[in-house]
């Protein structure tokens, strides 16, 4: 089988690739931030909440982790519409991604919380700190610091998984690619380009996380410990 690769055909579409990349970044950034907040709250709820809260969080995590994202996205997008509320595809995509990644974050952060030594809690307690103060000042930062690599990988996966939102009309990178390859029938070239773009994006996400870690985890920066 001989196939003549011709990437030049894709050149006129650079603007579309760029908008696709941009939307992918926006979707994943938003989902990352909100998903982290949701997941962390759930993790705290699971570690320290009432039995009802613990049960609710556990159910949420299990249901999400054991069903495919695609199905979740469909249910959010069409489900909300059936309720008579109209949200844009991007909004639905973000909601679905947040709900999804929130469950994974919850699991990861929970592991981090558990790794914070009980003695640390006792020390904070003995200094008279309240529960909220203890979480905020003593528990959360070291917990997240410890699971930061796992979180980073999870959010890279989230970025890659955001490609599924093309199915509900979000015009992110994969959607753009499918449109371009349908226009030109240059499937191989398109997929190779998209593969490379995703690879670059995943480096961007990792770099962003690394940079953020440097800012937040001051100690690591000062002591030069790798994240």
């Amino acid at each position, binding site marked *: 089988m001989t196939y003549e690769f011709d990437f030049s055909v894709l050149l006129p579409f650079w603007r579309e690739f760029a908008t696709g990349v941009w939307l992918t970044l926006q979707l994943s950034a938003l989902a990352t931030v909100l998903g982290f907040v949701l997941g962390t709250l759930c993790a705290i709820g699971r570690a320290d909440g009432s039995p009802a809260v613990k049960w609710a969080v556990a159910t949420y995590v299990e249901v999400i982790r054991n069903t495919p994202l695609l199905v979740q996205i469909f249910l959010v997008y069409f489900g909300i519409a059936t309720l008579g509320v109209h949200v844009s595809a991007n909004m639905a995509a973000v909601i679905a991604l947040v709900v999804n990644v929130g469950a994974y974050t919850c699991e990861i952060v929970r592991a981090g919380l558990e790794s914070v*030594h009980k*003695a*640390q809690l*006792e*020390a*904070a*307690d*003995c*200094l*008279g*700190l*309240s529960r909220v*103060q203890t979480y905020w*000042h*003593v528990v959360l*930062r*070291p917990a997240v*610091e410890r699971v930061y690599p796992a979180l980073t990988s999870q959010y890279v996966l989230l970025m890659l998984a955001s490609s599924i939102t093309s199915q509900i009309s979000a015009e992110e990178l994969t959607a753009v690619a499918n449109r371009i390859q349908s226009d030109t029938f240059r499937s191989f070239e398109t997929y190779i380009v998209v593969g490379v773009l995703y690879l670059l994006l995943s480096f961007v996400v990792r770099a962003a996380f690394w940079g953020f870690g440097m800012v937040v*985890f*001051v*100690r690591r920066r*000062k*002591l030069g410990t790798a994240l």
Partner: protein
Amino acid sequence: MHAPVSAKAVVSLSNVHKSFGALKVLDGVSFDVGPGEVTAIIGQSGSGKSTALRCINALETIQEGSIHVCGHAVHDPALDRRALRRDVGIVFQSYNLFPHLTVEQNIMLAPTCVKSMSKAEARELAREVLARVGLEAKAEQYPEQLSGGQQQRVAIARSLAMKPKLMLFDEVTSALDPQLTGEVLKVMESLAAGGMTMILVTHEMAFARRVASTVIYMHQGKVWESGPGSMLDRPQTEELRGFVGSGL
């Protein structure tokens, strides 16, 4: 056997019982500590020394008896723990510094959070207590950059910053080598000299002898013997004799 609760005692335990499940750990412990007194608790591993300290600071709840600390009824389920802890400082064997905060931030945390002190005031206070433990120069360091003895002194400083009326020390030197131990003991000695009421669990017999006004020997969850430091030279019971003799 036990003197009536002295009105001016800072700490007063009376017939305290504490079990973990089936395991009886404190079996009717009673003792008082007056203001400015330094009490050393000694005893074999597992005799309930740490548990006694933890009960005094309400880290464990007791099943029977009463504990009064600085006017707080610790055995009372309605106890205001945060108020108690403003009066009591505790330092553990394992330092328990917060690894993600600098020395100064470790010390400033409780005053700003609990006493709503301003950052500037808290920083000044931090410098002051650090000076007392001889570590002004380390304010900007992170705990892992310090030696064990220095970490332990920071832990003491962190407790001091809350200006407690009572300090509890649980084997604060047993993770340290002799030299580092010396540094920490020096700080504790100066606290004792400054009139701080202290209870310390320790393996350093010589130190107990030197600074403690009272030594309590615990055995099998009971106060087996107690008296002034010199009691160690003339043990009354077989057990204490064995204990004092076992060290090299």
